[in-house]
């Protein structure tokens, strides 16, 4: 021991906060070779410790996750392009589904007022929660993982040159080609499209033309 602080307490501080030692510990170290050595060893270990904690993320992502994300590239989905490009929706979608979608949109009316583009990291996070990916070429100003029919679904507002549209990615809602199609509910109109094993809903307020937005949003839209 030297000075007013003993070695035990000096080492407690060194081990607890090696980069911010108090004046008392500094004073102790100046007169205690053993504690000075302990401090030097701790500081040497500290740089290794920092390196150890800074995991290389390229290794981190080596193994695939348990659930491989499905691809729903709204702008360039081959599956979607074929279905939409291939033709026509002859029947109305299930009315109950369309009604529930519009009801959900009404509860998040503020989403239409969002103007800041959602950062790619946030958008990816929202979509990943539903197990889907999207490579956006249009700004997304609202992205939220929303509970819908017992699942978490991405609810997006995409800014097109023809105005904002709401897109809901319904990975768990299968609609067959006969059930997909346009719908009109209250103050909104929209379209429900089959995509992969699920579907996507695109909506806009009535009075806002939807066809132009769909051409921007959906590759090969007729």
């Amino acid at each position, binding site marked *: 021991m030297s000075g007013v602080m003993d070695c035990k307490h000096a*080492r407690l501080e060194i081990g607890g906060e090696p980069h911010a030692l108090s004046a008392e510990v500094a004073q102790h170290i100046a007169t205690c070779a053993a504690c000075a050595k302990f401090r030097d060893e701790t500081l040497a270990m500290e740089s290794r410790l920092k390196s150890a904690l800074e995991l290389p993320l390229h290794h981190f992502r080596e193994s695939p996750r348990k659930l491989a994300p499905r691809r729903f590239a709204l702008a360039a989905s081959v599956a979607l392009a074929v279905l939409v490009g291939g033709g026509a929706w002859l029947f109305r979608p299930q009315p109950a589904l369309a009604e529930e979608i519009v009801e959900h949109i009404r509860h998040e009316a503020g989403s239409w007022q969002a103007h*800041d583009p959602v950062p*790619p990291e946030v958008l990816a996070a929202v979509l990943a929660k539903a197990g889907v990916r999207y490579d956006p070429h249009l700004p997304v100003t609202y992205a939220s993982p929303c509970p819908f029919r017992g699942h978490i679904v991405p609810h997006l507002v995409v800014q097109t*040159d023809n105005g904002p549209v709401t897109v809901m990615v319904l990975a768990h809602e299968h609609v067959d080609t006969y059930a997909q199609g346009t719908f009109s509910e209250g103050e909104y109109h929209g379209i429900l499209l089959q995509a992969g094993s699920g579907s996507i809903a695109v909506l806009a307020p009535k009075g806002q033309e939807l066809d132009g937005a769909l051409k921007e949003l959906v590759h090969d839209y007729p």
Partner: protein
Amino acid sequence: MNTRPRGTTASSAFARLLETLRPDLVRFAFWLARDRAVAEDVVQETLIRAWKSREEIKDPAATRPWLLTIVRREHARLYERKRLPTVDIDDVEAQGDPALASDGDAGLEDLRRAILKLPDEYREPLVMQVLGGLTTNEIAEQLGLTQPAVLTRLFRARNRLREIHGLTPAEDVE
């Protein structure tokens, strides 16, 4: 006609900050959860929540500790919500988790394994301090502990790691 809105400068700056900080958030979440998939889920929740609450942040310098706090809370919430099984660290080791790989530096990989084996009560403040850059007072506040208690946990964490580093552990403190 182009009707697309542009983001505000503040939001653009915040978006860039999220992009910059994301890797450390993933690492931080991994050291808490010891599971890569859980860490990714936690960070996804964190980013979504942070973006929704971005107006709360007035000082950009406060963003990092704020995000780390959200990671901690989301990690706790995830276990509460999903009742996830706790990670058996022997399983993680046996599987040779690539997250711990170190490009040929075996000593570093050993150190990572040793950190993973630390009890939560020691590992968490250590990661908060070294990776998160938090002071002992900030850690104490977040963990609901006194500053001396945090100091003791940090000392014990490093003391356990000294041996793997080829150093003699110090005498423990009461």
